[in-house]
């Protein structure tokens, strides 16, 4: 989230697309309802289903899954035509909007109506409301990201916000709702195969920085790779790790994995059965040489597989049996305290990893940094007289002094604990602290540039000084492109800034010019090459003194010249219900070495006209009672009493056409040849041409009950088919997130 849940109460219009906050964030949804109540905010929901969020909305557009880009271009078309865009904002803070204008010109309301299924009147109405009720905030989640063009979707949405000047304002911004407790923390810590923690890139400079911060030699790290070139290559993804296992078998995608397949998998606290192509996941699990799963409940991956040995299940402790920080969807930190010792033989995750490290022989290197402290000159030293590290405080300190890109320097254990203990002293809407917490925002939302900084509640906000969380856009893409400056325009800078306009990110080279004074020799000594690697913090301190944002003040770019689509473009899903539109808006060419796996696009889409055999649109989504792979929830008997079995929301018209009665079993067939047997549930929330499947069930595979594999006493109260068994091939072109929201299927009476 660029802003926060509380800040939504400042919005005058709330645009919800590809997300269902009433179901995913029921408590957070209260802020949306309060905005509607107290601020007269208009709620707009764009969704293929009439969701619980839509039931509370003022305006609803029932869109065909996968056509979000046309819809937003349709809005931009109307906005530009009427001159509703914030011209000054675009001029000062956005690069490349003209290319967007050109594309938007093609998307007339009539064209949009044909592609999306939303009438021209509704499009115009919604656009008018959204443009006229400023500020507007835009929310999205997996409904927008889980498409082959997911990256395009997540670019067109902020482009809309920037066109209207809603980005970087209280009550505005793009408030992406992260789906998991601490998933924000997980991605910040680098649980991604193409970054280091803190989103440092996989380049030599970053590795050297990390070597230094981990207290090990760079060559030591290099020696862990086959050769240095592999340090710069992304690894497999959660979506397609199994391709690394199955490569070489007939029909499987080729991999580039240094000539070997993936042999072993360790799964820690991850519902890996809740990603697409579940049958492939089963095959991947079957063909591994070693599978280790660490979870408080028996992960369904353990029972879905047919393997008979080299499968180990380790009981890991829950959040109540362990302490540490968590990051909320709005970038705030909170402290979690252990309230009970780990039960039975379960171990906290870090202990499992430490034990593994010990046996693999790198425990000392692994934990060395926690035995070190950062001196004022920016160098680490082994802390004298320190016998053991204090977990998790020493880990938190390590994080705060290392992850500078996102500004975690202010996240000391003491400060975070103090916030969590005093959460009653913070304002519900702004997050601002009062009393002894004055000057800080709850949870010190990052970037929190230093231990004196109070956090950044709303990103990209130039209406406040940097010391209060103000900032422009990050200077990440160079200083100019095609002759146009990429730095912010004159006059566009956070309040009280020494430089009233754009400037590059702070480096040792430019610091003196930017702060307007020369540095002494001792000051110069403390400066690292740039603010991200300056471990004394000197560059950041100097910048903050001058009211400058350490990462610069640049324009946001509407054009990404390194992506296959410079600007977001609509491309039909691989399995599209509109073959005529597939001609006009085809998908990408197949991609080699996409996170090590050849990933198909055009080959799949062009293979045949799927609509003949699979005429029904299929989408997946969440239930309020469950989360992710659903295993934890299905171990609660009360939750199971409410949602006891897997089902399919089907419109009565579609059901009766196929002889499917309410409450009776039905088959859902996928174009990949997989099928699931689920209970039919008549619902008007879906249109007669589509069905909806919740993705939280597991334990059954294509009609076969695998739950007999559960060790005695560990089977959850409810099991069922997994929706992802019928979610077929399809991955985002940049991130490889599975495309689960816009598929095709055939329904059949069972």
């Amino acid at each position, binding site marked *: 989230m660029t802003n926060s849940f509380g800040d939504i109460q400042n919005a005058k219009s709330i645009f919800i697309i590809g997300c269902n906050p009433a179901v995913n964030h029921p408590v957070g949804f209260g802020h949306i*309802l309060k905005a509607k109540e107290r601020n007269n905010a208009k709620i707009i929901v764009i969704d293929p289903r009439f969701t619980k969020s839509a039931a509370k909305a003022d305006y609803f557009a029932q869109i065909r899954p996968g056509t979000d880009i046309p819809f937003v271009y349709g809005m931009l078309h109307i906005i530009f035509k009427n001159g509703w865009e914030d011209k000054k904002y675009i001029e000062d803070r956005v690069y490349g909007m003209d290319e967007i204008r050109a594309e938007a010109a093609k998307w007339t309301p009539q064209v949009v109506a044909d592609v999306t299924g939303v009438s021209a009147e509704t499009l115009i109405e919604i656009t008018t409301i959204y443009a006229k009720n400023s500020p507007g905030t835009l929310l999205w989640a997996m409904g927008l990201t889980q498409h082959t063009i997911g990256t395009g979707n997540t670019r067109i949405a902020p482009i809309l916000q920037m066109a209207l000047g809603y980005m970087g304002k209280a009550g505005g911004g793009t408030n992406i709702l992260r789906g998991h407790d601490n998933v924000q923390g997980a991605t910040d810590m680098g649980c991604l195969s193409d970054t280091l923690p803190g989103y440092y890139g996989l380049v030599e400079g970053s590795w050297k920085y990390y070597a230094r911060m981990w207290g090990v030699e760079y060559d030591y790290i290099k020696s862990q790779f086959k050769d240095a070139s592999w340090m710069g290559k992304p690894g497999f993804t959660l979506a397609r790790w199994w391709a690394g296992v199955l490569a070489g078998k007939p029909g499987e995608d080729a991999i580039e994995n240094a000539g070997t397949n993936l042999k072993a998998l360790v799964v820690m606290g991850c519902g890996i059965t809740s990603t697409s192509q579940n049958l492939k996941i089963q095959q991947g699990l079957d063909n591994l040489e070693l599978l280790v799963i660490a979870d408080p409940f028996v992960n369904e991956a353990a029972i879905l597989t047919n393997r008979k040995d080299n499968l180990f299940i380790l009981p890991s402790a829950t959040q109540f049996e362990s302490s540490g920080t968590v990051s909320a969807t709005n970038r705030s930190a909170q402290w979690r305290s252990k309230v009970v010792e780990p039960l039975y033989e379960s171990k906290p995750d870090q202990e499992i990893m430490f034990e593994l490290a010990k046996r693999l022989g790198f425990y000392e290197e692994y934990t060395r940094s926690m035995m070190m402290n950062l001196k004022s000159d920016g160098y680490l030293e082994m802390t004298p007289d320190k016998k053991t590290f204090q977990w998790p405080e020493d880990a938190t300190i390590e994080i705060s002094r290392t992850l500078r890109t996102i500004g975690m320097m202010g996240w000391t254990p003491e400060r975070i604990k103090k916030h969590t203990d005093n959460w009653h002293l913070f304002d519900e809407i702004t997050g601002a602290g009062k009393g002894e917490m004055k000057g800080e925002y709850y949870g010190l939302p990052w970037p929190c540039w230093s231990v004196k900084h109070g956090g950044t509640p709303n990103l990209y906000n130039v209406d406040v000084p940097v010391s209060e969380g103000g900032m422009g856009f990050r200077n990440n893409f160079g200083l100019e492109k095609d002759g146009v400056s990429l730095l912010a325009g004159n006059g566009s800078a956070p309040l009280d800034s020494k430089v009233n306009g754009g400037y590059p990110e702070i480096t040792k080279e430019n610091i003196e010019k930017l702060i307007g004074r020369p540095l002494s020799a001792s000051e110069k000594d403390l400066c690292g090459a740039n603010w991200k690697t300056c471990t004394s913090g000197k560059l950041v301190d100097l910048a903050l003194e001058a009211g400058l944002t350490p990462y610069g003040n640049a324009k946001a770019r509407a054009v990404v010249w390194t992506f296959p689509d410079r600007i977001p473009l609509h491309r039909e899903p691989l399995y599209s219900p509109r073959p005529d539109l597939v001609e006009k808006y085809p998908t990408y060419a197949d991609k080699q070495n996409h996170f090590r796996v050849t990933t198909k696009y055009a080959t799949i889409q062009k293979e045949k006209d799927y609509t003949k055999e699979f005429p029904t649109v299929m989408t997946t989504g969440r239930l309020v009672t469950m989360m992710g792979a659903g295993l934890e929830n299905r171990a609660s008997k009360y939750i199971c009493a409410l949602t006891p079995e897997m089902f399919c929301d089907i419109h009565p018209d579609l059901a009766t056409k196929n002889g499917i009665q309410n409450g009776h079993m039905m088959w859902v067939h996928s174009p990949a040849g997989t099928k699931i047997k689920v209970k039919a549930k008549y619902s008007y929330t879906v249109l007669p041409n589509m069905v909806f499947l919740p993705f939280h069930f597991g334990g059954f595979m294509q009609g076969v009950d695998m739950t007999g594999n559960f060790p005695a006493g560990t089977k959850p109260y409810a099991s069922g088919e997994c929706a992802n068994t019928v979610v077929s091939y399809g991955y985002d072109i940049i991130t490889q997130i599975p495309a689960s929201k816009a598929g095709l299927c055939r329904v059949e009476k069972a």
Partner: protein
Amino acid sequence: MENARMKFYCDESRCIECDGCSIACAEAHELPAGIARRKVITIHEGIPGKEVSTSIACMHCTDAPCEQVCPVDCFYIREDGVVLHDKEKCIGCGYCLYACPFGAPQFPREGIFGSKGAMDKCTMCAGGPLATNSHHEFELYGQNRIAEGKVPVCAAMCSTKALLVGDAQSVSNVIRERVAARGGKGINSSYGWDKAYKNQ
């Protein structure tokens, strides 16, 4: 001195059928699965403009009909309006359920031939006739949070604070503020408020 009159109000403009109240109640009182003292229902699901969700449990009515029809007279009504009953007197006849406009009484299958056992219903977290906060009281009736000065767990858990419970005056004040903030739009009455309390 006037006593508080405890009432429930579910603000249907805010209820999103998250079922938090239903599950919180079941967990807090360790109810057998299948006994749902509090249920959330959605009417006209999928119909724009008509879909409504609301949370229903015993409303602790004025002139409670359940108390009127009980053949063994096992109900007792506290001064603050909370309607409770004695499970050890109850014979599981079901009359209270027939009289109730809200379907609050629940019956576990504990009688002969799997017929109804003693009735169970929302106690507004006020326990039962047994010694307050005793183990026996917990086993039969669940937590007695009112005696500890705590809010009934359903309203405490409500995600959007749709479900309110407390002294009628305080609840009415909150609702009045919300209605005013909404400018009178949205759903401004709760199913059952009039039926249960008849302005008393």
